[in-house]
């Protein structure tokens, strides 16, 4: 936190009394500013550290006011900048001219809580369907989501073979073989070159954030786990850690190591799934089948440890629900050795195969500057030479004690992003082996109280797709006041829009798959 200790005095010096610095009981700094004064704060922060990015923008219904929280990610952690707006006049200046990557975040706050952002280039509905009535904001406390009547929209957007001058509209989605989950991307194509991409997300929006407010913390662990099938443990760990921060609860060391192992198994599963899927997108079905055959090993291990091949349900507030037995440790180790040998083959394939390289190299290149401006996270950022990784920047669970390498590639194209994931698989195998060798003895769970005292916490973990961000606010009951989830793919989709423009339409799937889209995460 050393540079934050320099940052705060610098901001105070330049802006004086317009910012109020508060530290909560865990030492987390948050800055309270007047609405619109936040622009100066963010501008100074970005100037001080180029890796400053907006991690999430949360909006909270505070009863008579609306709070807008900008969670800014610096090289060392999260600093929250808080403002408050009145409900009648919920308007604030947009930060997209400082950080273009905030566009999706602001649109979501507009959609779900009704805060309008002055100066936003495209302030339209994002996650709610077209049949949702205007002016009804689901995350406000006075709205009961189940009783909202759907309306027929005044005009449906026509999707057809419209010609717009020379431009043909090619619609990818919502149902399309290239997409694992439904989202709509409208490409405007001239010949074979893409001129514009308009994403429409929200097809998998299930209102998880609202649902989380109606369930106890105990039940919410299972709810957030099901935001995404592939990174389910990451969601569970992130939520539980946030609640543990509010409770000031220390998790036993053995639980931390077991959680790390589960998280890394998740990462293995996810990266292998993606590398196989990338093969499928570019027509390389053999690679797809081989990779998914090897992924079965990881799923069998997850089944052995948690009772289910995909959704682990093994994390709880205060630790993990099951212990690892000695026999499990041996099985895992044997599988890891086999997996490592198989990864050699894939690494060589990705390096040598001519058709694969022809399809992924120099495709979808994202420059380092764009990566920083668009606030991308995860392998998408690391493929463009931005070295951010929550496991290294703000170690959680057992990552502070386990040595591993941070993988970056400089070329910024699809191939680089896929190679980052491939190398991360090898690192994950190493992390699991180290964790198994150094597993502490002792309890694997402590009892957590059901009623959580008033407070709030932010927490992030490194999901396979990037930084996963949670903000939990509690109000002294057994039900959370606000749960905000910002998933990595949500932050990465604007980057796809940027890289697809100007490229061949045939490159769109290869480009798209390299950012590892997970729409269940995006929409929640």
């Amino acid at each position, binding site marked *: 936190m050393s540079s934050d200790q320099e940052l705060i005095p610098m901001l105070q010096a330049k802006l004086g009394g317009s910012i109020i610095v508060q530290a909560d009981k865990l030492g987390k700094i948050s800055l309270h500013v007047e609405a619109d004064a936040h622009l100066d704060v963010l501008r100074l922060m970005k100037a001080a550290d180029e890796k400053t990015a907006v991690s999430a923008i949360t909006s909270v219904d505070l009863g008579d006011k609306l709070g807008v929280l900008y969670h800014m990610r610096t090289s060392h952690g999260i600093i929250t900048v808080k403002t408050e707006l009145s409900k009648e006049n919920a308007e604030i200046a947009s930060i997209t001219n400082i950080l273009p990557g905030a566009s999706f975040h602001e649109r979501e706050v507009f959609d779900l809580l009704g805060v309008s952002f002055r100066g936003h280039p495209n302030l339209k509905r994002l996650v709610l369907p077209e049949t949702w009535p205007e002016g009804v904001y689901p995350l406000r406390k006075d709205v009961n989501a189940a009783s909202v009547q759907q309306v027929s929209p005044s005009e449906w957007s026509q999707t057809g*073979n419209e010609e717009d001058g020379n431009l*043909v*509209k*090619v*619609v990818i989605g919502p149902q*399309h*073989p*290239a997409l694992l989950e439904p989202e709509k991307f409208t490409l405007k194509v001239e010949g*074979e070159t893409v001129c514009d991409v308009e994403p429409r997300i929200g097809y998998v929006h299930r209102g998880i954030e609202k649902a989380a407010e109606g369930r106890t913390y105990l039940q919410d662990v299972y709810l957030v786990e099901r935001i995404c099938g592939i990174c389910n443990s990451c969601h569970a760990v992130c939520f539980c850690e946030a609640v543990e921060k509010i409770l000031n609860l220390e998790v036993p060391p053995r639980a931390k190591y077991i959680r790390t192992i589960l998280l890394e198994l998740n990462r293995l599963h996810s990266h292998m799934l993606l590398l196989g899927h990338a*093969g*499928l*997108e*570019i*027509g*390389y*079905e*053999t*690679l797809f*089948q*081989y990779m998914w*055959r090897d992924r079965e090993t990881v799923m069998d291990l997850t089944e052995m440890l948690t009772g289910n091949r995909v959704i682990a349900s093994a994390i709880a507030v205060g630790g993990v629900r099951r212990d690892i037995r000695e026999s499990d440790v041996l099985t895992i180790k044997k599988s890891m050795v086999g997996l490592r040998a198989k990864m050699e083959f894939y690494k060589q394939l990705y390096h040598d*195969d*001519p*058709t*694969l390289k*022809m*399809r992924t190299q120099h495709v979808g290149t994202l420059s380092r500057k764009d990566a920083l401006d668009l606030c991308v996270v995860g392998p998408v950022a690391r493929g463009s030479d931005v070295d951010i990784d929550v496991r290294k920047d703000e170690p959680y669970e057992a990552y502070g004690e386990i040595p591993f390498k941070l993988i970056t590639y400089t070329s910024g194209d699809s191939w680089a992003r896929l190679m980052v994931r491939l190398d991360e698989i090898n690192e994950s195998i190493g992390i699991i082996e180290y964790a198994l060798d150094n597993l502490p003895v002792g309890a694997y769970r402590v009892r957590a109280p059901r009623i959580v005292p008033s407070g709030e916490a932010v927490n992030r973990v490194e999901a396979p797709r990037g930084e996963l961000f949670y903000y939990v606010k509690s109000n002294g009951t057994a039900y959370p006041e606000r749960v905000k989830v910002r998933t990595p793919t949500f932050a990465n989709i604007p980057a796809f829009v940027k890289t697809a423009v100007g490229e*061949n*339409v*045939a*490159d*769109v*799937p290869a480009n798209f798959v390299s950012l590892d889209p997970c729409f269940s995460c995006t929409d929640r």
Partner: protein
Amino acid sequence: MLCDWFERKIEARIQNRVGPKFTGPSGILQPLADFVKLLAKEDIVPVDTKQLIFNVAPVTAFTIILFAFCFLPIDGSTVIPGASFQGDLIFVMALITVANFLLFLSGWASVNPYSMLGAARVLTQFLGYDLPLLFLALCPAFLTGSLSLTEIVAHQTIPFVVLIPWAFVLFIITMQAELEKDPFDVPHAESEIVAGYETEYSGRKLAFLKLARDTQIVFGAALVTVLFLGGSSGPVFFGANAVWGTLWFLLKLIVVIAISEYITCLFARLRIDQVVSTNWRWILPLSLLSLASTMALAFWVYPAVM
């Protein structure tokens, strides 16, 4: 259809899977089952399509390829005896071109952006690759001094794959492109444009489109067999000449299909501009080169072969 089953089994085995299994012994009836199922499905014709071409193209394409089959010498002489004539090699190649063009038309007639893209890609691809295909097909013709398929087969005392192996390799690669198989299967790239020119088809017409494609693949393999592998020549052990000829033909056909499928499994799919540039930069010059070298070779080989 047998070849389709064989292809799918090989692809499955290479990919460590099982492939068709339940329909008939070892799944051999699977392609037939798929065909019959499609015949029974509802045939939906979107309102905006150019009705005549949309309805007629699939069956016509299939018919033309079947017609081209008549000229292939399967058991020493052609399927319809006496149908061969001088120049039927060129005729057969022209028929394939027409059939491919019909496939393009079927995509163009369905007014759907995916089909249009697919149709445009089909056209670009097969028009480009027709040239090297023709040049390479002429290589065996030069070696035997005749343009009749039957005569080319008859003169292969040594299979031409031994004499002009470079032409054989190039021909197989070019044939992959003509047949739209990996790495050249961009016209019906599933993950990008759904099903290319097949997108709007359903029911009976789709059944025939697929059958046309399968027949095309078999025909391509048969052409390779005839031109380079000596067609139906092979040792006769006992019984009728004609039976053994057919048997050897089928055997060689299956080997060619196996090789073709193996290549399909090995590579990813190239983009259309990469396909086109591969053609003009590599395949065409190489095919011209191989034609020139075959012509040079023919001076020595011709007397020996005749």
